[in-house]
């Protein structure tokens, strides 16, 4: 890896394949996400987007391929070799889920506190110092609460901080899950369909939030999305997947006019698709 690439790419996926028995979910996929960019991964249903995410987040072990993450200070991690919880803890990759996975019986604030588990655990002396109420732990906990309050302010949920996360409206739950991931102070934030089930206004708010996250915190974002208003509105770079293969990549403008993408999305019949594919080459 040359030095230029390490400084600009945060995520470098090379020759990633994932097979489930005879089914090839992802086939020889390579792409890079630039530091500080919002990179989108799009494609029709069943294209293998979430599989890619699960490989990055360590929920699946890829059959072949390499996923290299380079942190802002230049440290490199090969994600396919890390255990799933270490990907978040050490490599600082946070993710959200397609179907929201908050802790519904815990308050919004508690959800954000759980996300700060590892630093708090160290501060509490692995529970022993915390058990006797050491002042160092108290300070750390207050800092954690302040961080949580900051993020709750950002999404306008401070007034509902003490309500059960499961009782919040759907859109709020989505945004709470995103800021919960942000509370673990990630270098790379992976969002799996963050706009699913949101109305137009909420999608707009989501765009603002994601742009603000990138601007204020320098967090790189990788997102899967079907909502084109989100994808086209905020992405710096888009990769299009179909049947586990990358079929196109580029800026939103390029993707919008790419005939292969249009074919994949509109589900053209075989002949037309073939024609389009050949024409696009």
């Amino acid at each position, binding site marked *: 890896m040359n030095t230029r690439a390490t400084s600009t790419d945060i995520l470098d996926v090379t020759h990633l394949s994932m097979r489930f028995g005879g089914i090839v979910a992802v086939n020889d996929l390579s792409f890079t996400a630039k530091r500080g960019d919002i990179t989108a991964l799009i494609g029709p249903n069943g294209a293998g987007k979430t599989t890619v995410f699960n490989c990055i*987040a360590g*929920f699946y072990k890829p059959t072949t391929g390499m996923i290299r993450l380079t942190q802002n200070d230049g440290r490199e991690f090969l994600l396919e070799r890390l255990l*799933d*919880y*270490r*990907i*978040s*803890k050490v490599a600082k990759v*946070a*993710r959200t*889920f397609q179907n929201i*996975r*908050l*802790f*519904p*019986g*815990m*308050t919004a*604030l*508690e959800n954000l*506190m*759980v*996300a*700060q*588990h*590892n630093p*708090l*655990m160290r501060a*509490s002396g*692995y*529970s022993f110092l*915390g*058990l006797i109420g050491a002042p160092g732990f108290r300070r750390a*906990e207050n800092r954690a*609460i302040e961080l949580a*309050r900051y993020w*709750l302010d950002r999404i306008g949920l*401070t007034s509902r*901080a*003490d*309500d*059960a*996360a*499961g*009782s919040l409206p759907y859109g709020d739950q989505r945004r709470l899950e995103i800021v*919960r*991931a942000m509370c*673990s102070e990630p270098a790379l934030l992976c969002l799996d369909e963050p706009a699913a089930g949101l109305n137009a206004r909420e999608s707009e708010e989501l765009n603002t939030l994601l742009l603000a996250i990138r601007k204020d915190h320098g967090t790189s974002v990788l997102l899967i999305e079907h909502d084109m208003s989100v994808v086209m509105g905020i992405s710096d770079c888009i990769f299009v997947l179909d049947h586990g293969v990358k079929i196109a990549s580029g800026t939103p403008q390029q993707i919008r006019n790419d005939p292969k993408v249009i074919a994949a999305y509109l589900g053209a019949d075989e002949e037309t698709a073939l024609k389009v594919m050949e024409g696009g080459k």
Partner: protein
Amino acid sequence: MARTTDPLARVSAAPVHGVAFILKKSFISALVALVLFSLMIGIRTEAGPTGQLIYWTRFGDLAMLVVGVFAGSILVELLRGSIKPPAFTSSMPASVSGTFNKLRRFVAPALLVFTFLVPVIFYDQRYILDLGILVLTYVMLGWGLNVVVGLAGLLDLGYVAFYAVGAYSYALLATTFGLSFWVCLPLAGILAAFWGVLLGFPVLRLRGDYLAIVTLAFGEIIRLILLNWQKVTGGPNGITGIPRPSFFGIPLTNTEDGLAAKLGIAFSPTHRVVFLFYLILALALLTNWVTIRLRRLPIGRAWEALREDEVACRALGINTTKTKLTAFATGAMFGGFAGAFFATRQGFISPESFTFQESALVLAIVVLGGMGSQLGVALAAVAMIGGFELFRGFEQFRMLVFGSAMVLLMIWRPRGLIGHRAPTVFLEKPTELSSTMVKEGHG
């Protein structure tokens, strides 16, 4: 009891049904009763004087029972139509439920003060003191298991194994090496925690029912080892002559250097009972204090998060393996403490004391109390163990009454006596969370 507007309860409250529906339902109930009771009640069989089978019929009784079921069924349906819905839907006026909530805050301190005064009030009643010690032992076991089941959501059916490990640790260490109770107590806890981790490792990947089965088997394995490893554990004969606890080195005996003689008061065997009472109270309160503290620490929050959603935990960088193991170890440690106390109180232990029934009883206390609620578990332990004693006079109906009581309680309060969850941290004010949100955990 403070009743809140519970959406689930409102759904379950059936609307008033028509006469035809009620009759149909009652008829079906009567039919089921007829099929069931025709053999159980209708025909009575017995061995005759020469060993042959003789039987006689009791169709009159059978008819009465079936009619009784029919009538009772109609009654239940009518009651369901007329009484239950208003009771469930119309929650108490805000002022009343507010007072109840305020009162509830005083329940725990009041109970605590009362418990402290029990040996003073009932000094002459040995039976009550013994019962108090028994109840407190189960309160402690319940609080210990609450860490595993209530907080971390790991269904553990073999909790009695750790109780046994603690008891045998103390018994063996004390009888073999002559170590004192106060040295053995932490050792028993550590050994039980060690076995907790040992159990934890193989079951880390298991969830729900599978986890329950393995923990159940673990409990049985420990019991069978105790039963069969004659050389060490004495097998079914158990271990006798376990030393009684001393008051920090001063024995509670009727001798020159006993506590009574040193204090210059007349010796009474009740002294020891009172001492044991305060000992188990202190141990139980230690369990409670540690659990409450741990719950507010990151590890406790991780336990609860694990109960809510394990996948999300891993995505947030929580080492679920360590988290589960610490939950098992913490719960087991308290079980071990309780076991050591049990051994020193009884002076004799045998595998018979550590059957699955004990595990089931402790689990029932935790579930009945409301998983995760410290006060609920304490109340449930009082109700269960106290209830057992209360119905002792009924002998054969005891289990029947008890079973019905539990079924009714589970219908009316499916999330246990105290089904609310208090948040561990808050910005403005701690609002209790309705149990409908809180998950039970899936292993």
